[in-house]
Structures are given as C-alpha cells and as structure tokens.
C-alpha cells in the first residue's frame, strides 16, 4: 500500500454536505471487475455535461483551470456516505487525490480510504471553510500542506490546524503496511479463539 507521510498540494473546495459515494463514482461508471479505470468516472454526474458523455461541465470545480492538478478535496459533513463501494476511493486515487478534509466522513468510506493510502482528515467546518477561502484566491499558488506524522494541516497563510486520527490508521498510512500480513501475526490468538468458540457456539461452524 502507498505510504502517506507529508503532502503539499492544490486543494479544491467541494463544500457540500452528504457527498455520497454514488456521486463520487456512479454505479454506471463501474464497468469492469477491476480497481483500475475508474478515475475517468470520478464525480461523473457533476463533472460532465451529459450522462454517459465526456464533455466537461466548465462550472464543476475540478474542471476549472485554476484547480488543475488537485490532490486535496475540501468538503462538508458526512463525505462518502452511502454505498460501501470501494470504487469511490479507487476513483479518487486514480484521479490523483491523496487527502480529503471534511468535518465528518461516512464510516465505511473512511475505512476504505485508510486501506488504500488515502488520508481522510477531520477538521471542524469553520476550519475547512477558512482553508477554502484562502485557497480560492489563487489555488495553484495557495497550496495546502499536510503532515501526518505531526497530525497537522498547514493553510496557505501558515495557520496550523491539528487533527485527530487513531493510532492504527495513522501507522498503516505512515508505513504503508500490509494489513492482512499485520493481522496474521495474531494467527495463534485467532486459532485459539476459534477453537474455544467452536465449543461454545458449534452452530456457527458449518
């Protein structure tokens, strides 16, 4: 898994609440049994003028020239709510997004981010909006800096916003860990649990 340590990038404000995973990657854009080829479908319903077509909607933030090369999204409450489709995260990654800053996230989406090297950062709504105001003046020059080690977001103007993240997800991102491998280090404990549990709840073991 790709590591995440520090990142400085162009941030695009998508200041809506409840941006759902159907909006991030519409089901019709999930065309193959693959984690790849999804970047083009990112935000397809908003990004293109007509359904299924590819003519860019000039008003959509990511299509505006000043936001070319966006790697950080700023958004509202409950980003990534709805469907569990991990394709939303794969599409964001393929597009080039490395981090999303929002007041809260859909739980399954946030987990999917962590498992794919994408950093979901929780900051209060006012902080997200303050970042957006600074960025909007000149997005290409006013970049946002993220330091996961220090758990800090640094605004273009130098203001520092600390954020909280559980140690587990943080370590996984910092080290790019293979989570399955990490859990298999506990194989003996899992074996012992299962053996004991089989006695207690034999009907579970078909």
């Amino acid at each position, binding site marked *: 898994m790709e590591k995440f340590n520090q990142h400085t990038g162009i941030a695009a404000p998508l*200041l*809506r*609440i*409840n941006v*759902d995973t*159907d*909006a991030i990657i*519409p*089901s*019709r854009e*999930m*065309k*193959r*049994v*693959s*984690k790849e080829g999804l970047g083009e479908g990112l935000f397809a*319903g908003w990004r293109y003028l007509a*359904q*299924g077509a590819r003519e860019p909607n000039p008003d959509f933030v990511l299509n505006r020239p000043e936001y070319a090369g966006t790697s950080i999204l700023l958004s*509202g*409450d*409950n980003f990534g*709510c*709805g*469907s*569990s*489709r*991990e394709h939303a*995260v794969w599409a964001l990654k393929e597009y080039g997004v490395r981090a999303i800053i929002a007041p*809260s996230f*859909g*739980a*399954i989406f946030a*987990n*999917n981010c962590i*498992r*794919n090297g994408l950093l979901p950062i929780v900051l209060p*709504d006012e902080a997200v909006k303050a970042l957006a105001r600074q960025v909007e003046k000149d997005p290409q020059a006013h970049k946002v800096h993220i330091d996961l080690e220090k758990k800090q977001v640094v605004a273009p103007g130098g203001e520092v916003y600390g954020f909280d993240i*559980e*140690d*587990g997800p943080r*370590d996984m991102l910092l080290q790019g860990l293979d*989570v*399955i491998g990490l*859990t*298999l280090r*506990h*194989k003996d*404990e*899992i074996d012992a*649990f*299962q053996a004991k*549990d089989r006695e*207690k*709840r*034999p*009907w*579970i*073991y*078909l």
Partner: protein
Amino acid sequence: MAQTLFDKLWTAHLVTALEDGADLIFIDRVFLHERTGSIALKSLEAEGRSLRNPALVFCTMDHIVDTFPGRTDDTIMPSGKDFIQSTRASAHKAGITLFDLGDSRQGIVHVVSPEQGVALPGATIVCPDSHTCTQGALGALAWGIGSTEAEHAMVTGTLRVNRPKTMRVLFNGDLGLGVTAKDMILHLIGKHTAAGASGYAVEFAGDAVEALSMEARFTLCNMAVEFSAFTGMVAVDDTTLNYVKGRPFAPKGALWDKAVSQWRALHSDKGAAFDKEIVIEAQDIKPTVTWGASPEHAIPIDGKVPDPATARSENQRASMKRALAYMDVKPGQILTNLSIDAAFIGSCTNARLSDLRAAATLLNGRHVAKGVKAICVPGSTQVKLAAEAEGLDKIFTKAGFEWRESGCSMCFFAGGEHMGYRERVISTTNRNFESRQGPETRTHLASPLVVAASAVTGVITDPRDLMRGGDGKI
C-alpha cells in the same frame, strides 16, 4: 455490570485488543455479491491468498442481474456479464456457497441471508455492501465494509475495528394505522439528520419495535446506514426465534436448544448505559415521504416541503436549496398532489413477503393510474415463490404492475435499466440521492403502502385515504 446488547456481541467476538487501539473482532459470516464481492475474490486470487473458513463465506447474485423473466448471464447493464461470470468462477474456485442465478435461494443479499439462516442471532456478519446493517435486526452484529476489508475478513477470519459508541433509539407506544417501520426510520432520520448516528452502533428498542414483525425489523435496521450508524440492531425475543427456527442453515435439534439458551441473553440489561439516547413517541409518526435528495429530507405525508430559511445550519440550507432545484419542488408545497411517473416496490428495504402483502391489500381490485409505470421486484426468489403461492402476483399484475425476478433492480442505476430522465418515482428503496435510480431521476422514498396508494392515484397519496373511508377497502 449491566451490559448493552452491543457490548455483549462485541465482547463475545473479541479476539484481542490490538496495540494500535483497534479491537480484533472474529467474523462469523462473510456474504458477497457480484458487484463488490467479485473484485475481492479476484484480488485474493491474484495475491495467492486462501480463505480461512470457506464454509462460512456465502455469495449471491443480486446487484446487476436482470430481473426480467427468462434472464441469463447477459444483462442490460453493459459488462454486467463479466461481473456475474467472474463471481461465479471465483466462488467455485474459493469453495464458498453461491446462490447463483436459477438457484431458488437467490435474491438480494440482505433478504436471503436471514431467509436461509446464514445470518443468526449473536453472529458477526459482514458484507461489502452498506445495507448489511439490515441483518442486525436478528440481534446480530452486522455491518457493511469495503472490498479490501472483505478480503481481510476472508483470509484472517477477523476484522480490525475501532469500537463505536452506543446509542439507543426508543420508539414508545403504538404505531397508528398505515404507519410502518419504513416511516419510523424516515421519521428518525428526518428529525436527527443523515449524519445523526455517525460513530454509533444503534439499538432500536421500545414498545413499537417489540411489536414489529421480524421482516419489519429488517426494514428498520436496513436504513441505519442512512442515519450514518455503524450498524442497527434489535434485541432477540420470541419474534426473532420464531423467525429463525427451521431455516436451512440455522441450528437444529439439541444445537437449536443450546443456541436459544445463549440467544435469550441477547438484549440490553436493565440499567445498561448508552452513550446517547433518542426517544420518539410512535404516535407522532405519520406515513413519511422524502421531498429531496437525502434521506434526511423526510416529511410527514401531509406536511409541507420546508423552507431553506428554516434550515438548522448554513450547510443544511445549501443542501436543501440544491435538492429543491433537483427535485423541482417548492418550499411550502404539499406533496400529496404531486404527479408521479413511476412506482417501484423492491430492494433490501421493502421487498419481503409482508411488504408485498401490504401493497397488495391496496392494489387488490384497483388499477395503477394511467401513464404510471409500476414495477414490483421481490426481494428474493423465495419471496417471489411464496407470493405467487398465495396469488399476490395476480393482484399485482391485474393492477398493472410488472412482476419480476428477484434482484436489486432499479434501487440504483448501473447503466442498464432505469426509471427515466428526470422522471418522478415513488419508491420503497433506501436512497434518494441525485441520479441514484436513473439520469436525474427524482426519487421519493416511502413505504410499500404509500407507493401502492400513489401508484393507484397517480399522485403521491396518503395510504390512509384508501384505508379508512375513501372507497372503503382496506
């Protein structure tokens, strides 16, 4: 110490507390479907990993299969066949149990899992599908995960999970005529927002919940994810046990007795502390319908579309304005004279036998209004067969509804069949997101009673108008 139902389920599956603050939770059941399970299985193959307990892993075809009679692997959705065939090949290779097309156990994952007794009280159940919380209604811990997490669960038999907080939602008293579990959950989300349970595992309790049938409890828990909950759950009681008994994968004989003796304890102890509690008087709930593009945009069916000026925050105001434009409705408007283009009865929310029976009571002897496209997609092949055995299919088709094979169908638009550009749909599904059911399709979420009543009149209709007085039928 007094424990909550959630505490009991969590503790019973705790393998170990991990050094990083998460808990390693043992997973009893993994269920997959062709949409997101296919990629998990394919990815495991590519990595050369094997499943720890293949006998505990199940798979069904529901998400992108067609629902027309005589269906095959071909789908209206472009490339759907690849998902179906990839899933089938991987499932056979992995040695898991597949409810394939043509198998009488096939259907929507959250309908067939309890129906077959795969989901059981006290079990941990995960599926790469957000509506897995449905199955928590059995007094189980069931939650939606991503495909990568599904791989983790299949290989290690566990998941690393940060323990959520606990919330109890108490529905006191009795529901009124024409008010259902769907109205309870829409009412709750309408009052407490779509992010209202973020970070919480929610137990639904109280007289009104205890009085619900098992199938209605699935409806209630189904939309816990629309409330942003980690999961929803209901304590085990006789209703639960009567439902589970005799299901194909449920324990039998002496094992059944042993299981029941443990399952009887699956309730929150008296005095158990929750991190948060919400109390709702059931009598305050009316048939509820959504006006906007989030499940939180829910109002009583005789209510008015709210004015964004009354929004509780600037962000809510912006969301409401956007939804008003998308749905083409105005603040202050009443919904009960709004013309619909289509009516849809289906999905893991509301397509069980009791849902179809409820709709049929209103459709019997009536006909769908002119110009309204009406479709019923049973939640499982078993539901379809049972409905046909009691003649419900005849009532639906005579009323002008299409009667389909089971699948998720038009709960979402995957590039194939859809509800039509900007068409207005009254739907028993769970999500009214922009373009969820079709290109710019305008979805109003409601109960099967509301959908059936609306299909008949051609406008969004309070089912109670057809149930009491009116034309006198029930």
